[in-house]
Structure formats: C-alpha cells, structure tokens
C-alpha cells in the first residue's frame, strides 16, 4: 500500500527538494579572512592614534643621560645616540607616517582613478592628449618634481607633504586605470547604463570602479609604502618635515647612521615596524582583491 502511494503522480513542484547542507563552509570563509593582519594593523593603528597615552617619554626630547641604551625597562625599545626614546617615536612617528602614507595614497588614488576614468571614457583625441600629459609629468623623475613643488609650496607640513607626494605620483595609476577602463568601457553593461541615461559619476562609481578595483589594488596598497618611503627620502635629503615632527622616515635615516655602531635596536625596530605594517596592509588589500570571485586557472 505504502509503495503504491509512492507511485501516485503528484506533478511538478509538489514540494521543495532540499538536501541538508553542512555548515562547515562558514568557518572556512572566516578563516580565509586576514584576521591576523587585521589584528596587528588594528593594534598598530590604535597605538599610533593613542600615542600620547602609550608613550612613556616625549618623542622629540633628548635624554642626554641615556645615550644609545639598548632596550630596557625604562626605554622599551632603547634610545638612539642622542638619547631619544625609540618606543615613543615609533608610536608618535607612526601617526605621522601612516597619515602621510594613507592620505598620500588617498590623494593619488582619487586623482589617478578620476583622471584614468575620464581619459578612458574620453574620445580618442582627448584620451591621447590626457595620456601624453600624464606621460610628460611622469617623465620628470618623481623626487625631482616633489622637490620643486615642495620648495614652491613653502614650509612642509605632514599635510603638504602628503598632498605633494600624492599629487605627483598618480600617473602610473592613471595609466593602469585608463587601460582597464578602455577594456571595460566597451562592455555591454556600460552601454546599457549609458543608454539608460546614467551620469558619468554614477558610471564611474557603480560600474567602472568596482570592476577595476581588483586590478589596481596592489598599486594602491603599495603606494602607501612608496609615500612613506618618499617621505623618508625627503627627510634624508633634509627637505622633509620640521625636526620636531618625527616620523618613521626620520627614524629610518637614524638607522642608517646606526649601522656601524652595532645598536641593533635602532636599526631593526623601525624597519620591522614599517615592514610589518605594510605587510598587513598588503594582506588586507590582497584579501579585498581576492574576495572577488575569480575563475580558477586553466593550467
């Protein structure tokens, strides 16, 4: 009887067919997130933001009684040859450096993306002109251009340095964006959006940006590092920030000096902080990029 019941025709959509789904995948997805990087970066950022309450010494003071001391309980990361407390400088300087890094990145990304999109969407003639202009600007060695503009801009502040660095380093990003946009702009969804009457900012924001974001992610993230490095090069050249504003960049030039004096703490600690920070940022950027589903390789 029961058997026959099974063979009663009930037709389509009689009930939903489901199979129990194991929940393990949620864990796996969470695991793939760069939790560790986020944590480390979070701690670093928090430390820099709350530098005042963490520091146990004044970052730009010279503790002349404690020259060149290795890390100890009073000076957690030791002191340099002028008696400055490296621990405090790290946090305080991190604030300046990260500010310059991030805002430089923001500026160059904004300019680069906007310029690149505009050029990519423009008719051939305008596009050509815009690209040649960018090429012209980028043919002047970056440092040289920064130097010239900084000297016109007057006394450097973190903001002006970030602005100048950002304002002079967007060209290669613009070029990448442009070539991406050139590829995307012929795609049909852009045509659709256009034929529906979408404005340029709308197309840029909803259609172009999300689609080339992954392509420029690495360039954007690594521009944070190049902004920090450029600032340190400027410090090295003596054109950087006023002395009372310490940054990781000025710390790096300190470590150059200390190379022969076996003060490993002066050499290593700032470098480690910079590299770790950048690595974390890269990891997170990489995740953001990878989060967009990519087909698997055909190889």
């Amino acid at each position, binding site marked *: 009887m029961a058997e026959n019941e099974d063979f009663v025709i009930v037709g389509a959509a009689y009930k939903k067919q489901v199979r129990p789904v194991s929940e393990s995948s949620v864990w796996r997805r969470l695991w793939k997130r760069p939790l560790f990087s986020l944590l480390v970066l979070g701690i670093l950022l928090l430390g820099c933001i709350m530098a005042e309450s963490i520091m146990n010494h004044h970052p730009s003071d010279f503790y002349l009684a404690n020259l060149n001391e290795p890390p100890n309980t009073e000076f957690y990361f030791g002191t340099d040859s*002028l008696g400055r407390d490296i621990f405090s400088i790290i946090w305080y300087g991190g604030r300046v450096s990260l500010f310059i890094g991030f805002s430089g990145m923001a500026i160059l990304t904004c300019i680069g993306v906007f310029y690149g999109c505009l050029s990519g969407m423009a008719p051939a003639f305008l596009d050509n002109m815009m690209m040649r202009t960018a090429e012209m600007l980028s043919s002047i060695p970056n440092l040289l251009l920064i130097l010239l503009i900084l000297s016109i801009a007057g006394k450097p502040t973190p903001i002006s340095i970030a602005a100048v660095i950002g304002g002079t380093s967007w060209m290669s990003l613009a070029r990448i964006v442009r070539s991406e946009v050139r590829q995307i702009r012929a795609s049909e969804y852009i045509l659709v959006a256009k034929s529906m009457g979408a404005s340029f900012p709308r197309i840029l924001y909803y259609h172009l940006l999300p689609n080339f974001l992954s392509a420029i992610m690495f360039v954007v993230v690594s521009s944070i590092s190049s902004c920090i490095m450029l600032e340190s090069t400027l410090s090295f050249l003596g*054109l950087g920030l006023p002395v009372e504003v310490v940054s990781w960049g000025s710390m790096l030039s300190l470590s150059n000096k200390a190379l*022969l004096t*076996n003060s490993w703490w002066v050499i290593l600690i700032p470098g480690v902080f910079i590299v770790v920070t950048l690595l974390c940022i890269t990891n997170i950027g990489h995740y953001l990029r990878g989060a967009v589903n990519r087909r698997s390789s055909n190889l």
Partner: protein
Amino acid sequence: GSNPQTSSPKGVDNSTLAFASGDYTTINPILNTHDELPDIIFSGLMKYDAKGNPVTDLAESYTYDANTLTYIFKLRQGVKWHDGAAFHADDVKFTLDTLTQSKTLAASITDNYKEISSVTTPDENTVVIRLSKPNAAMLNYLTIGILPRHLLEGKDIMTDSFNQHPIGTGRYKFVSWEVGQSVIVEKNTDYYDKIPQIDKIVFKIVPDENARALQMKSGDLDIAWLNAQNTEGFRGDKNYQVFDFKTADYRAISPNFAVPFWQNNKELVGILGYALDKEAIVKSTLGGRGVSAYGPLQLNAEYNNPNVRHYDYDPEKFRQAVEALGWIKGADGIYEKDGQKLSFGVDVRENEEERIDIANVAAQQFRAAGVDMKVNIIQKLNWKTLESFLIGEAAPFDPDNGTYDLFATGASGNYTHYSNAEVDKYLQAARMDVDPAARKDAYDKFQEVLAKEPAYIMIAYLEGNYVAVPRLKGPSTERVLGHHAVGVMWNIEDWTLGNS
C-alpha cells in the same frame, strides 16, 4: 689600497693612497677656500707651518717696510709649473690682481686682499706688494695658491676649463678627474722642496658619511674623515688607527642684532650660555668628540686668552641673571617680560645634520630653563629676517682671519650686525700692528670685551676624526685643522705608506 701591483722597496708601498673626499666642482685655490686638493696642487708665496704660522714657500724671502706699507718678495728660482713652464713673478701679480680687480670673480675671500693697492714686478723674481692700510694678517692671506698667468690670462676665471684641469706648482700634480668618482694626483718630482713619498693619491668621492665609513671598513679607503659616531667603531681595532685632530671649527648660536628682539635684549646673549649644558651637547651630538667653547680664539695656540668669562652651564646662575633683568616665568614655564616671551627662532640649513642635532638639543635645554627657542630648518639663509643662526666658524691660523670680518662693525662677514666700539678698536689695532706682543695684547683685550658682551652663544669646538689604515705613517695631529677638518695633508710630504 686597491692597486697592490706596483712593486717598490721592501716594506714600503708608496704607490697609491686612497683618500675619502667630498665632491668637487672646481679645483682652484681662489674658488675653493677650504678643500684639500688646491692645497696640495698649488702653492703660495707663503705656507703655514705646524703651528699655523706663515713661513715662506714660493717666496725665498721677504721684507716689509712698515712706513710705506710695502712687502718685497724674492721668489724661488727654477720653480716650474706642472706643465713645464717656468714660474715667474708675473704669475703672482696675475693672481693677486685677479683677487683684487676681477669683475667676474665672486669669491668669499676677496675682502682679505682689499688693502692691496698695487702689485708690481720689477724683475722676474721680485714681487712688490703695496698696501693701502696695514694688515697684520697679510702674510697669512698670501698663503693663497698662485695661479699660472700663461694659462688663465684673459679667460673667465669662474668658468674656464682650467678649473677642471688645474696646473699648479705644488707638491702634487693633477692627473685625471673622473667626474663624480675620483680625482687622481701624482707626486711632483720637480717639486722645489721636499718631494712627497707617496706616488699617487686617489681622492675617492664618497659624499655619504655612512658609505664612507663602510668603504673604510671594507678596505677601499686608506684614510677618511668620519663623524664621531662612526669613528667609534674603529677605535681599538688593530686594523685601523684613528687620528683625533683638533679643529678650530666651532658651533655657536649667532643672534641677528638687526632684529628687534636682540636689539632690545643684547644682555641676554651671554646669560643664555648659562642655560646650555655644553658638555652634554658634545657628548650626545658629537659623540663626545669635541670641547665646549667659550671664545672664537680658544684653540689658537698663541693668541687665546683663557681668562675671560666662560658662561659655563649653571641653571641657577641663569635663573638669577635672567630674573635680575626683569624676566618672570609665565604659566607655560617660559620667561616673559612686558608681555613679551623669551622666545626666538634659530635657523639651521637643511643639509647640516650635526647642526640640526645641536640646535635641537640646545632648544630642549633652553626650554627646560624657561627659554623658547624654535628650530627652523631652512634651505637658504636670509640674514635680513632670521632671528638667529646656528653658525659654524673657524679661525685656525692668524687670529685676524675669523675675528675681524665677523665682529668688526660693518665687516664683510658680520652678518649678525654685531657692533661694539671697543671690539672694533682692539680688532683694528691688532690688524694694524705687526708686532706680535702688541697684537697679543690687543687680542687679549678684544677677547675680554667680547666675553662681556658676546656676539655668539658659544657651544662647542669639533674634533676632526680621521681613520686610517695602520700602514699609513705621517699624518700629524699637531696642526689645528679648519672647517670640516680640512688640512690633514698639510704635511703630506712626510707621509709614507707601508705594505699592506
């Protein structure tokens, strides 16, 4: 050494010395005033001995007539330029005329020669120099290298290619110049005096201090001037020797008396010295390689007057003195008077790292004492507006050089607008008087007056630390060096290089 291939007598390899040098743009004694190369390629009528006193060089002898203010120099015979041409009195006249009359020349030293009214050459071996005013330091100034007339006459001294292919009469001959890389000189075997023993000197251009230290370590250099910190790494290493030269190079904060703050507060200049722990500055910024400074002639062996007021570190004394002047500490810990803060800026040029450090440490010490000194890093000095400058000066030789032009009212180097009638008087007297005893007396007085009303807040004298390989023998620390420790090669003819 990098070229061990040339053979030489046992135990001695005088072939090539590698010397770490800064970059050169020109090699010309009247354009480069403190550089090593012009010193050894060119020679002057006079030269300095170990003590820094002028003695004859190209001149065989000289006489001075105080009434007519005339020097008559007899020149050495048979001296040859490196290109083989004979050296004449004309060359001397040409050089001095260039210094005094050239329209295109813009060198910082021309002021030293402005008393020369005429130069004549009665014959090939005699030069007659007539002065318009007495100048006791003239013999010092005549140590300037003599330029060859036959190569430079009618040319623009500033831009002529001679500056890159110098021909002199000195101990070493210019051989080649690889731009940015090295300048090579070899010994002048026709030299009229003691011929140097080291065949060849390579001036390796290594501008970066750390790179220089590393090259020294890696054996690419034989002798190099290093900063105090880097020198530490070589001390006690048997593979290296360290020469600690005294230098007449000092650092001070020089107030600009043209700005209102200092015009109103001249008295502060001296007192501020009490607030600076100079020993600590030397220890930290100079790695302990230096001495605290109290006067511009402090390292002058003959003319120094140690018995002047010193303004050594004494915060209590500073407090009393400054409060005696009516300053009262404000709520922020900075002194105030009549609503004005005890606050001024100090300018430092961006490329001078050790000065920046000094300024920063000094600023911190001042702040602790209640003085607000702001450090400004600048690219270009503007003496019209700056409030004070972290100055570096040196008076290694004649006391006139490095005092008169700095402290006399309206003198060419007196950018700070310092003016003190008594100082002027003694400096003038010392300049006019050729008699050493009288001069000494005048300089003693000058130093006393200057100490009472100082022009600078003196900080420290630097040391010049040269690191060399042990096989290099001969450098003598007897001589007090000048700015940037220039002058090690003053006795280059005595240097020898052992085998590596």
